[in-house]
Every structure is written in structure tokens, then in C-alpha cells.
């Protein structure tokens, strides 16, 4: 089976070694007998057709680079929406998933329009970084997820979070995190979340393969 992966903005939404997710998922798919083709698209690309891919990934960036990619991704939001509606496997980690909502209020007072796949809103500040190791429980996995969150934002009005936190730093006021609708997964966990969570990696690999069957 041939699987086509799209890594979005791999050249700068890659602040905490996020390319590791794509490397490990590729390995997992290859171990299951798939042939994996990796494609990368970035801000200099003028055409993206999400329908071409079996899996779409985007990692974390600085706040300014997030805005930079959001402005570019807006041009292709209808295609992304169709891919989501069609049940494609999509993973956005770190602050990249925050682009998928309605609006982002930036620390310098601007209101950015999001990609509008979901109705949630994001508020950023520049006074304090929220960082720390977390553990979490997602309903579709037996094992607890582990990871590290590194952000400066609060998200409101998520109707279907990805997981419930079971361990977190005191500074985190939220109990749930991320988003999970259809086959789209979004989480603020930064870095190679699939490396630290082989069960999650395997789950996504199976999902991609079953989608393709």
C-alpha cells in the first residue's frame, strides 16, 4: 500500500524537533508493509491540494511564525476543510492546532481570523510561558499519553477535547486539552509526541491504513 504524507511548514513549524513525529510514523507505516511518500509544503508553495494525501501533519512554531503560516494556509482552507470532512487523518501539534479555530487574539492586541474548521477561540499573552510535563488520558487509547506543553495561550470553547489531563503543573488551569473530531487530532504537546507515545503512533498508523482500504 502506498501512503502519501504531507508535512506542512516543516522548515519552521519545527521548533521542538517535531519532524521526529513524521520520521517515526513513516517507520511505523513501513513496518506494516506500506510504502511511504513524504511531501513537504511551505510558504513559498502556491498550490496545495490536501485531497492528494493520506496524512497531514503540522508542528509547533514561534508565535510570529504561526501567524506567518496561518496567513499562507488561509489560501487553502477550503481544501483543508474538505479533507477534514472526508475523514482524512490529520495531526496538528503545538500551537499549530490553534490555527484551526475561529480567532486568535495575539499578545500585541491583534485579532487574527483562524481557519474556521472549529468554533474555538485562542487568546495569547507575552507575560508568562506555560510549560511543564503532563500525563493525559484519551478515550481511544488504553495507555496514558505523556508529553511536554510549552505555550503562551488559552483556548476556549473546544467542544471535543483530545484528552483529559491526569498530571500537570500547578500553573495549568485547564483540565482538558487539544481537539479530536473525526480523524483530526490537535494537541498543544510540543515535540515528537508520537515518539514518546508509541501507542498513539500506532493508532494513527492503523487509522491511515484503514482509511485507505
Amino acid at each position: 500500500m502506498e501512503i502519501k504524507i504531507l508535512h506542512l511548514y516543516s522548515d519552521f513549524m519545527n521548533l521542538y524537533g517535531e519532524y521526529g513525529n513524521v520520521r517515526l510514523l513513516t517507520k511505523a507505516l513501513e513496518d506494516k508493509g506500506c510504502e511511504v511518500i513524504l511531501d513537504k509544503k511551505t510558504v513559498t508553495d502556491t498550490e496545495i491540494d490536501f485531497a492528494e494525501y493520506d496524512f497531514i501533519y503540522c508542528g509547533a512554531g514561534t508565535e510570529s511564525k504561526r501567524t506567518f503560516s496561518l496567513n499562507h494556509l488561509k489560501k487553502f482552507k477550503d481544501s483543508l476543510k474538505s479533507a477534514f470532512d472526508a475523514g482524512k487523518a490529520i495531526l496538528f501539534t503545538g500551537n499549530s492546532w490553534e490555527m484551526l479555530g475561529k480567532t486568535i487574539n495575539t499578545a500585541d492586541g491583534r485579532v487574527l481570523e483562524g481557519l474556521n474548521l472549529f468554533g474555538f477561540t485562542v487568546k495569547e499573552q507575552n507575560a508568562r510561558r506555560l510549560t511543564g510535563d503532563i500525563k493525559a488520558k484519551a478515550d481511544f487509547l488504553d495507555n496514558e499519553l505523556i508529553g511536554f506543553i510549552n505555550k503562551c495561550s488559552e483556548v476556549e470553547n473546544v467542544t471535543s477535547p483530545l484528552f483529559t489531563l491526569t498530571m500537570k503543573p500547578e500553573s495549568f488551569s485547564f483540565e482538558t486539552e487539544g481537539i479530536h473530531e473525526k480523524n483530526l487530532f490537535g494537541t498543544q504537546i510540543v515535540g515528537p509526541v508520537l515518539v514518546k507515545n508509541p501507542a498513539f503512533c500506532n493508532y494513527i498508523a492503523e487509522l491511515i491504513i484503514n482509511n485507505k482500504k
Partner: protein
Amino acid sequence: MKKIKVFLAVLFCKTVRFFAKLLGRGSSLPGALTLKLFPNILKDITPPEKIIAVTGSNGKTSTVELIAHVLIESGASLVYNKEGSNQIEGVTTMLLCDSTLSGKAKSKIALIESDERFAKYTFKYIKPDYLFITNLYRDQLTRNGHPEWVYASINDAISDDITLVLNADDPLVSTFGTDRKALYFGADKLSFDKDVNDSVYDDGKYCPVCNAPMSYDYYHYNHIGSYNCSKCGYKKPETKWTITDASLEDKKLTINGKHTIELSFSSIYQCYNSLVAFAAADIAGVKAEDAVKALSGYKMQSGRIMDFTFGKAQGTLLVSKHENSVSYDQSINVVTHDKNDVAVLIIVDKISRKYHTEDTSWLWDIDFEKLNSDNVKSIYLAGSYWGDLDVRFSVTDIPKDKLIVCDSVENAMAKLKDEENFTYVITCFSDKGKFLEIVKKGEV
């Protein structure tokens, strides 16, 4: 009233320092206690006439050590935070202990190493005349966020009366100088430069000013080099202090075409550190010949490079920084440039001495791929994070039979005892103690 306050604060700080030293405590505690009792004391003292500060991600402590060495050799009256306590508490200890009881500085020059995130607090009352910024890398992101976040923090510490001395080769650092009083240091094209950035990530790909793609004439290492923006024209600024020639084989560098310094340990880092020390000496009025003389052959005291023998194994410990890929990349560079066959031991046992985290995403930013070099015969991976190292190395093309994965430092050392190739040990301050202890014992 103010006089009495200063008198009490200086006396208190010196007394605490005296007892703290007896108890083997660091230089941060006396300042911390003094600031509790006298929160704004730095405003009321008379600091040295000239204040030079150094901040940035990497090389602060080494640079400060080198600058201090040059200034002291030239007979300057200097106080500096020797022990590297670089937040406001350590700086308070240093300045108050250098004061008379009336609060007047005894030294003429203060040299301050400042933590990049806390500079804004330190510089509120103690304004440097010159602020050196060495570089901004991905460093301890679990607490620092990311380089642009640190940038904003340093930016808050800069006021118009400070002259900035900036690394022109670092695209993010050089932008601090836009519309400000700034001088620059940097390196011209060097013999070992590269045309492409072959690291696993590239923080110089897009312009820090306008986000358009940048091109480079050459890279010294990672994203450090000569860049220019295709859209807004932002480019590497002209440098006042310049490495015009350097050879890592011959262990020397030449500044401004005429001042040649012999290095005791050859690395691109040491070249930059020496350049900064030369520039600081120039600013402090030291003659170029005297600076060259002091810097030539100087052996760093800060213990980042140490030789060791353990059983059959002989080698060098290259102290690197966990959570800082550029620092690891520099050590890997030393390994792959060795003309002999070598072994490498990488230890990740405890990520930080100062705070707890289990985040190992930084391992993915390190160019471990480069260890796939003919001269590297075996690679030992050890420490409590051996699993993370194992997965990271599994996606490199390094032949599996070269990898020796050990679930503890002890197990790695037991195997290392019989290693016949010269061995480089790459690890952090937080983990070197465990290694050195076993070396000292001579057995596991």
C-alpha cells in the same frame, strides 16, 4: 537616611557572604537576602565607572572568563561574577561586596554576566555602558519558550543609553541594533565554512525582520554566517571586530587582518569567545598587542574540556549543554574532525540540575546523523534516557553494530573500560559528576 541604609546593606551582604563562603554556599544567597531587606539597594550605590555586560544563549561564562583574564593581565581594576551567578541576586552580591561601606565601588570596571531572561531586572538600576549579546539559540526551551521569546525579554532590558555590541553573524541577534547605538563583531568567510546549512533544522531560513526567505553567502556553523534577505534587504551588518582568518588545524585566528591569537583548544566557539574578549579589551582601552598576548595560549579554567583515563579507555570529556542542540553540534564537530579512530559516549541521565523535566524533544534538534563518520567506530548511549537516545539514533543511518545502548551510566562505564579507541564523552554539567566520580574511583 540613605547613607545608613547603604551602610547596613553593604555590611549585611558582606557578612552573609563571609559566612556563606564558610558553609560552602554560592554567591547568589547573600544578594538574595540583601534584596529581601533592601529591595532597591542597587539604585543607591555608586557602581564602577565602566560597566560591561554579557548576555546570550551560549558562551557567556567562557566569554566573561576570557574578558576578565585580559583585563586583569593588563592591570585593570575589575570586579566580575566569577562564579557565574548571573541573575540579579548574584550581581547584587558582586557589586555590594566590591563596595566601601558608603556604597562606592572599589573597582573601576564591572564585568557582568547576565542571564538573558533576567537582564531586564538587573539592568533596571545597573545600566551597562556596553552590552554584548553573543547569540540566541534554541536553549533550555522547556523554560525559555523559544529564541524569539528570549529576544523579547532581552529587548525589554535595553535602553537608549546602552551601547550594544552584537554578533553580526547571528541574524536574530543583529536585529537588536536596528535604530540603536550598536557595534558589531563577526567572522569573514573562513576556510572551513559551508555553502549550505546541513543541520537538522535551520533557524536562519527566513528573515527575522520580514519573514521572506534569506540566502547565505556562507555558513560558519548552523545558521551563523553571512545572510541577506531577498525581500527587505536585511543583511549581516559591517563589523568593527572581525575574524579575518582562522585555522582549526593550526589552532589560531587573526582579528582585523593583523592580530593573530594562538588557541590552546581549537573550536569555532573559542574563536568567537576570543573575538568578544578582544573587542571588550578594546572598549576598556587595552592595547591590541596586550590583548593578543593575554589571549594567546590561555587555557580555560571553566572545566568544559577535561582529559580522562579509565581502565584501557583514554579520552576527553566535552561538556555540552542538554537542551541546547548547537552546543552538542559543536562537540560532534570536534569528534568528526579527529583524524584518528574514536569512540563516543553520550550520557543523558538528568536533563537539568535546576528544574525537573522529562522533555527530550531537543535530542531531535541535534545533528547526531553526523556521527555516521568513518572515524567513529563505536557509540555508547547511556543514562536514564537511554530509550530516548535509542529511538533518536534509530532514525539515523549509523550502522546498528556501532551502537552500544546501555541502561545506566554504570553499565556503559563497565563496557567502556576496555575501549581501545580514543573516547569522547559528550554530556552536560548535570551529568558529568556521575561520570567523573566513576573515573575517579577507577572502577564501576
